[in-house]
């Protein structure tokens, strides 16, 4: 590596921070960009826990079983070597977090405690109360702060990623970013860049995601030629509390600790999940639980008071167990709804939660199907030098993610991405610092112009109103139950939104801390991605994992055991399909 070699990581959630730590351990200087102070990243919202088959409860669990359940949970759409690598690395990852001081719940003997979760019958999920994501994020934030103090990491918080800088050969040589206070737009040269910018729930208006989860950075890369994969697979979490500003997650761990889902029927509680799934009961995977709740509310019209609502009941569980293991989420319910779930059942409904799809990334596996740690191909997008990790990319989860696997995939993605970036940089014949400034100036001009265009929008439309309407139509038509005519209509509506976007009144012309300009730019990026999601769903005529089409109720492996690949064109996304690596486990019927 040249003395001037440098990496950039965009996004300070778990995947980004883990990548940074791996880069710092390799003594590679790194700049870390984040829209918010990294300690406030969306990873804080993860509640239930992180999976690792440590088998401390004598149940005979193993990483191999974890791997099988992950692939089955994803309806066999995941590339198997990466899923296998992740599950095998999981115990080591949880031990590492333990060493970092994460206050995991403990057994009476002082060992790590594990609980059950969706899609498994094993106790495999390590947890810190019901705010596990927050606790894990803090642990990584602390490690990165240490490296920052040592001068290896430089943070740029309240900066927004605008685009990748590509040289004449199409290689990523840095990023353009904007200081969200001074509004300065600047080019940052780098030899390798990793986007760890999270999910895209904001496209659905109200979701369990944080405000920053717009998918904007991934969309910008997509519009620059990065392939976006499996966009149509959107996880709708079965249990969330609807609100005016967002829907708030009620963790699967509530059911893992004994919580029961029911609606009143003939004057008595009807535990419909337990009745239909006697083996997994309330812990069927999320896509299945969500569809059952939809069926009960929308088809049978048995929702509470005839509304879109079912009970999630933990009131029969002893109070001290609840406080110790679920305190964080019960507090959320209490604070936002004003009722004590220790005494009365919670009212919940499914809400948009997670994007299985994301930027396409590569990997290298050996002949036994194990990922080769340190291969520069790992986590790399089709744009050389541009990597991705965490929810921003599409690997690991296939068509449906199992609960408590997302935190795991963030860590594993970072563990692969860091060394991959280091290897990639070692293989470069010249570093970004040796390139002519024209490479950076050209992209700077492009972004300055784009900024001027947004700042100069003086029409009549309000960007926040367009966003609200986008969210409503996406939630209505592109979530749990999908019909082709409605998907088609949604795509038309998105194009009308895009037209209206051009007639926005930006209203705020300040050159200091201008949120309207930033949001309007992100709104365009959301619109671009919403077409990828909607058209991806339209084209895929089958039901698999989170995609359910009543007109095509079965999984169709002959035609659709394929990864969706969307490429940006000025006329909308272009779709291709690639085979899935099923070399380790033969696809079988998914039954619970």
């Amino acid at each position, binding site marked *: 590596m040249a003395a001037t070699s440098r990496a950039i990581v965009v996004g300070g959630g778990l995947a980004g921070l883990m990548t940074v*730590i*791996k880069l710092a*351990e390799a003594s590679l200087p790194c700049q870390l960009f984040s829209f*918010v*102070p990294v*300690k*406030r*990243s*969306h990873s*804080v*919202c993860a509640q239930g826990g992180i999976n690792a088959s440590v088998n401390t409860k004598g149940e005979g669990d193993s990483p191999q079983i974890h791997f099988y359940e992950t692939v089955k949970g994803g309806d066999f759409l995941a590339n198997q070597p990466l899923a296998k690598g992740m599950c095998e690395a999981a115990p*080591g990852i949880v*031990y*590492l977090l*333990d*060493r*970092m*001081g994460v*206050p*995991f*719940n*403990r*057994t*009476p*003997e*002082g*060992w*790590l405690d594990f609980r059950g979760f969706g899609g498994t019958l094993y106790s495999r999920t390590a947890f*810190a109360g019901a*705010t596990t994501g927050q*606790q894990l994020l*803090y642990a990584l934030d602390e*490690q990165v*702060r240490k490296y920052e*103090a040592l001068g290896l990491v430089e943070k740029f918080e309240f900066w927004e990623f605008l685009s990748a800088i590509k040289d004449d050969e199409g290689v990523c040589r840095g990023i353009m970013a904007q200081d969200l*206070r001074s509004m300065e737009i600047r080019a940052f040269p780098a030899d390798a860049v990793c986007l760890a910018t999270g999910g895209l729930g904001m496209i659905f208006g109200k979701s369990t995601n*944080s*405000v*920053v989860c717009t998918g904007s950075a991934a969309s910008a890369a997509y519009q620059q030629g990065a392939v976006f994969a499996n966009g149509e697979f959107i996880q709708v979490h079965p249990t969330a509390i609807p*609100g*005016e*500003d*967002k829907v*708030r*997650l009620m963790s699967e761990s509530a059911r893992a600790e004994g919580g029961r889902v029911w609606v009143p029927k003939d004057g008595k509680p009807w535990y419909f999940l337990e009745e239909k799934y006697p083996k997994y009961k309330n812990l069927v995977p999320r896509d299945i639980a969500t569809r059952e709740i939809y069926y009960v509310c929308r088809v049978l019209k048995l929702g509470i008071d005839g509304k879109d609502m079912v009970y999630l009941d933990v009131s029969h569980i002893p109070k001290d167990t609840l406080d110790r293991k679920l305190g964080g989420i019960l507090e*959320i319910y209490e*604070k*936002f709804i*004003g009722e004590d779930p220790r005494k009365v059942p919670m009212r919940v409904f499914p809400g948009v939660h997670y994007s299985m799809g994301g930027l396409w990334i590569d990997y290298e596996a050996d002949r036994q199907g194990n990922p080769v740690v340190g291969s520069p191909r790992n986590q790399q997008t089709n744009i050389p030098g541009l990597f991705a990790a965490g929810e921003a990319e599409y690997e690991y989860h296939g068509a449906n993610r199992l609960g408590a696997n997302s935190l795991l995939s963030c860590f594993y993605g970072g*563990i692969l991405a860091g060394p991959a970036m280091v290897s990639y940089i070692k293989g470069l014949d010249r570093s970004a610092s040796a390139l002519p400034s024209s490479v950076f100036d050209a992209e700077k001009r492009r972004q300055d112009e784009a900024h001027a265009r947004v700042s100069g929008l003086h029409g009549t439309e*309000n960007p*926040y109103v367009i966003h*609200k309407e986008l969210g409503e139509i996406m939630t209505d038509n592109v979530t749990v139950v999908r019909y082709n005519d409605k998907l088609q209509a949604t795509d038309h509506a998105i194009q009308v939104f895009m037209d209206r976007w051009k007639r926005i009144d930006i*209203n*705020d012309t*300040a050159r*200091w*801390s201008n*949120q*309207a300009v930033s949001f309007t730019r992100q709104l365009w990026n959301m619109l671009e991605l919403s077409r990828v999601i909607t058209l991806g769903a339209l084209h895929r005529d089958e039901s698999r994992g989170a995609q359910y089409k009543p007109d095509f109720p079965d999984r169709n492996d002959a035609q659709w055991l394929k990864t969706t690949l969307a490429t940006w064109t000025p006329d909308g996304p272009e779709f291709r399909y690639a085979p899935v690596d099923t070399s380790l486990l033969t696809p079988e019927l998914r039954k619970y």
Partner: protein
Amino acid sequence: METNGRTVTLRVKRQAAPDAPSRWEEFRIPHKAHMNVISALMEVQRQPVTVDGAKTTAPVWEANCLEEVCGSCTMIINGKVRQACSALIDTLTQPIVLEPMRKFPLVRDLMVDRKRMFDALTRVRAWMHLDGTYNLGPGPRVDPEAGAVAYSLSRCMTCGCCMEVCPQVTSRSAFIGAAAISQVRLFNLHPTGKMQARERLDSLMGEGGLADCGNAQNCVHSCPKDIPLTESISAVGWDLARHTVKRLLGG
């Protein structure tokens, strides 16, 4: 969640930039069930017009998780510092007065710069010294009760409420504040973190350190996560006293 004819009035302190003059603006929006301050502000974004019918810019504020775990949306609501996401409209007297925190440099409108809190975490070395992220097997066994204490301290989201209410924290004082002191207790309790206890205690000596605490005890009452901040300050205070004596004796 339909509108019900009722309205909500927000009175928002506006300031375009750190050196710009401040002013007040009032907004009236339709009331909805379960509305919080954030969703009211979002409604203003969709129609940024004051009660006088004047077109204005949408107020600027900081927010992220909206579940009171990230700490972003802290502001002063009807005179009390708290998170805007968990401030439910139906529990607030109207007009609802929104102001930025006063103890931190203003950025714009309701947004302030809390960098000093993150700097404080660097000062007290709020991290574990790991040999590396390679696999060294499990961490130390932890007494479940001690673990529960650690968890209660570890929920601090660096929101700034304890700084805002502390009389010792001013724009001119360097007082590190209750949150960072409590982090010293957290790390010094841990079997591994303990090994660097002395350097963390050292960091609390001198200007802006623990001795600047005036024992007003406002912090503990303002903490949205019920972190036992005063307990932390006194626990760390004892350790620091012992540590100082040892140092004097050349230990």
